């Protein structure tokens, strides 16, 4: 048995009520989907049209779907955390044991950062960046598919403990040693954590390389770097950060795994290991990670502000410099995550001041947005509402950040709920609001019809007030001395604030329901809201110059660019400026679909699972499978096909539709 199943035994299968519930949900949901697909005979359509696709638009949509599921999973975790904290005061132990509670907040953090927010961003970048730079495809379409499937494999891995049991990690979202070492966390939880992050992190790294090459090498003729739309710029900055810091994450969690699997001593408390080194390395990745999430959404806000103010973005040069400033400084501030670990005053002050300096380029972007709005003709569409919500919340969240950058203040605020409230403000109002704004803004481009405005606004207001109500009390609780991650506490005065935070969470839940309703209603009314122009917002950048949804080749004729806001300038010059009209079509080469990325990720998944449970034969099988897949793919001479000029002409006359 041991040879066959490693450490996996019957007794490790799920037997806690909440893992059984999770398992039932996963299996039930999966069976339901399979049933629907079988009933409507859609398996082939799914496999050929979507799963094996190398089209970044389809991959982008799949990213959005998987990330939304993970967002839901993370939200359920958040609700469970809140419920525990609102009842576990004084003698009441709450409904969760400490170990369960700790697994839940660990999973909440990892899922929200790695799988919800990152997935949503990668989805939007896949969907929009190639269109914005006038490219037909990414530099490495197969690699893009591989990055997505590794991300999916990671997302499945982080939920595997539901089905195969054991437990999830309970050492916090970064699994700091020595707590995460085998001596203090002997279960498989941390191993699930390691391998989930490892495979999805590799996917992110591959994506980062892909987008850097795409943006730098595949822009439409004439588009200089300083002509690029802001979202493309900030995505580039974000991807530069990805390739600079994700290797560190890969290394540091590999070393932790070596410690746990082979009994090595990188970060152990004994035998000369150095846990401080882990803390340093993980935050060298972890802090830039925050900017990886926030930079692209700053680009989204720039696009939205200039589109809805119907003005050129003010201070473009300054905006690009600011994005680069943030990118560079992001790598110089990691120590502010542990001022309280006994570094000297000089070291702390240096990192604190560097952190404060990041506020400068950030604030400059606010000034430029406001200047863009000045004397504009501002349309109050839903994306702009999200921007306004962001403007207010992020300002105060940023202030809290500068406050935390003062080491002497941080001594009193570190690891308190004030800190929790701060980073939720940054990620929710900075990244998530921006993603919602971006999805609303580009939805007609992606799917060919607009989202319902009134439901979108209702969703926004519930989100905004829910957000304020759930994190306002957390700022206060921090000042009261409440620390994060408490499964119970003995201060009666804290309880009302925890309950208030939960009401905020409920409001957010209503907001999310409105978003679901918005999508359903919009699909129902799609014919009424169909965007036939390809340019529903009177947009400025190239993605609006092609049809909605764009054909699989994006542009029948690659546009030639002469400056910033290429599409807007074209529109000013001529009435019907749709690129390619009346021009000669040429044959183009497009990438074929391939299932190899799925096979490769499946083997990587198997190997990872085998590493978690010490199943040696499966490790060898999985790794060998990965290697064979890579070899087969790299020897494949037949990865592209030709779309002839005649076919192009035919496609141009019959627009694509998903729904």
């Amino acid at each position: 048995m041991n040879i066959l199943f490693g450490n996996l035994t019957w007794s490790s299968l799920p037997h806690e009520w909440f893992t059984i519930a999770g398992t039932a949900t996963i299996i039930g949901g999966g069976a339901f989907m399979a049933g629907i697909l079988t009933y409507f005979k859609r398996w082939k359509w799914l496999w050929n049209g979507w799963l094996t696709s190398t089209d970044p638009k389809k991959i982008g949509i799949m990213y959005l779907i998987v990330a939304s599921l993970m967002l839901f999973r993370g939200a359920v975790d958040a609700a469970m955390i809140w419920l525990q904290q609102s009842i576990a005061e004084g003698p009441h132990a709450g409904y969760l044991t400490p170990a369960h509670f700790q697994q839940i907040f660990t999973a909440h953090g990892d899922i929200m950062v790695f799988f919800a927010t990152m997935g949503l961003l990668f989805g939007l970048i896949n969907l929009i960046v190639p269109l914005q730079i006038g490219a037909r495809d990414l530099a490495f379409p197969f690699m893009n598919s591989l990055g997505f499937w590794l991300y999916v494999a990671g997302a499945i891995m982080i939920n595997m403990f539901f089905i195969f049991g054991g437990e999830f990690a309970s050492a916090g979202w970064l699994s700091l040693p020595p707590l995460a070492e085998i001596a203090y966390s002997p279960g498989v939880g941390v191993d699930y954590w390691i391998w989930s992050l490892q495979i999805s992190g590799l996917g992110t790294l591959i994506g980062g390389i892909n987008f850097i090459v795409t943006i730098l090498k595949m822009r439409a003729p004439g588009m200089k770097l300083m002509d690029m739309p802001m979202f493309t710029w900030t995505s580039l900055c974000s991807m530069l950060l990805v390739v600079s810091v994700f290797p560190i994450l890969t290394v540091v969690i590999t070393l932790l795994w070596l410690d746990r699997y082979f009994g090595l001593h990188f970060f152990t408390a004994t035998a000369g290991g150095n846990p401080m080194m882990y803390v340093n390395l993980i935050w060298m990745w972890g802090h830039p990670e925050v900017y990886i999430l926030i930079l692209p959404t700053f680009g989204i806000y720039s696009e939205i502000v200039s589109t809805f103010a119907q003005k050129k973005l003010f201070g473009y040069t300054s905006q690009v410099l600011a994005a680069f400033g943030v990118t560079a400084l992001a790598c110089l501030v990691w120590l502010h995550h542990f001022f309280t670990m006994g570094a000297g005053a000089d070291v702390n002050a240096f990192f604190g001041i560097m952190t404060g300096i990041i506020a400068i380029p950030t604030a400059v972007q606010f000034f430029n947005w406001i200047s863009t709005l000045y004397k504009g003709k501002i349309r109050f569409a839903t994306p702009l509402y999200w921007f306004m919500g962001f403007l207010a919340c992020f300002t105060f969240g940023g202030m809290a950040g500068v406050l935390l950058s003062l080491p002497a203040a941080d001594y009193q605020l570190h690891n308190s709920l004030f800190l929790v409230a701060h980073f939720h403000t940054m990620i929710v109002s900075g990244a998530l609001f921006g993603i919602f704004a971006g999805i609303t803004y580009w939805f007609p481009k992606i799917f060919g019809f607009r989202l319902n405005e009134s439901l979108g606004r209702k969703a926004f207001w519930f989100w905004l007030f829910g957000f304020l109500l759930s994190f306002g009390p957390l700022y206060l609780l921090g000042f009261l001395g409440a620390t994060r991650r408490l499964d119970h506490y003995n201060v009666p005065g804290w309880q009302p604030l925890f309950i208030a935070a939960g009401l905020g969470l409920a409001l957010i839940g209503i907001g999310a329901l409105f978003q679901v309703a918005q999508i359903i209603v919009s699909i129902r009314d799609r014919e009424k809201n169909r965007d036939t122009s390809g340019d529903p917002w009177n947009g400025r950048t190239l993605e609006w110059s092609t049809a909605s949804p764009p054909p699989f080749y994006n542009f029948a004729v690659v546009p030639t660019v002469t400056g910033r806001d290429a599409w807007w300038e074209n529109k000013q010059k001529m009435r019907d400026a749709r690129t390619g009209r009346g021009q000669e079509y040429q044959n183009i080469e497009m990438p074929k679909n391939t299932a190899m990325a799925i096979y490769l990720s499946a083997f990587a998944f198997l190997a990872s699972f085998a590493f978690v449970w010490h199943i040696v034969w499966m490790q060898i099988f999985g790794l060998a499978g990965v290697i064979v897949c890579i070899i087969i793919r790299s020897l494949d001479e037949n990865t592209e096909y030709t779309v002839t000029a005649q076919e192009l002409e035919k496609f141009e006359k019959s627009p694509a539709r998903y729904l």
Partner: protein
Amino acid sequence: MKTKPKEKILTYFIGLADLALLVLSLLQIFHPIFKLPNLGVFNAKGSIAQAQSRLIITAILMMLCLAIPVLAAGFFIIFKYRDGRNGEYDPDWGQRHNRLQWVWWLFPGLLIALISIINFQSAHNLDPLKAIDPKTKPLTIEVMALEWKWLFIYPDQDIATVNTLDIPQNVPVQFVISADGPMSLFWIPQLGGQMAAMTGMTNHLNLIATDLGSFRGQNSEINGAGYAGMTFTVNSVTPSNFKTWVAAAKQSSPALTAAVYKQLELPAQNVPAATYAPVDPNLYYGVIDRYMGPPSVGHDHG
């Protein structure tokens, strides 16, 4: 550009509010004007926590000086130019005032420059390593974070306590902090904090209680299942009461020998307070040495 009277009033209002904030934050640097009652961190009972809460309020006020006008201007502009209803739509305004983008760097730059000065000074003045009063000899307390309880050793008094801590009022206390288990964070919000407890190394934290009373202390870094219950009480008593307490503890407490420590070391949740005397004098540094191992250069931390 003509300014309408309504806008003028708004401008004056924001300007005045800003000036008031600026004055308040300057005053705050020298004297605490805002003392919010009964809020943990702001309800300071020692000079370190007082200075820290003053710093927090000062920094908030200073940042509001920039945040309020920017936000007010931002929302005012958004609503004013809604749908271009006042007919002032001017798409080329930006090209004509392009240089303004460089001016925008000055405002946050100036604010951050000021805050950086405060940052540097406060980081040094409130350095946890720094002795509070170089003339007085501080009371030394060795803190050992265990799974999941705090062990406090008074080396000069030869007593030890678990999850309770008595300190004399107005006497500087030097905490010498280490751990025998996963990393923990030592925090007494009303006196100041926090400092990490890590195996094989010692961190220092200097605090003082200027008021009498009982304060809550806690661990703020997750270190396993018993994390949330790892709280302790700090009693600030008069120096004479402190002496009485020490004497009483010495009389009626069991000794903290190596064998007792072995028991204490075992993981346990929500541990009640206890007192020990006398204490094995090599206990604290013995634990550190155990993690340092046989002679080696050991851990570096910057």
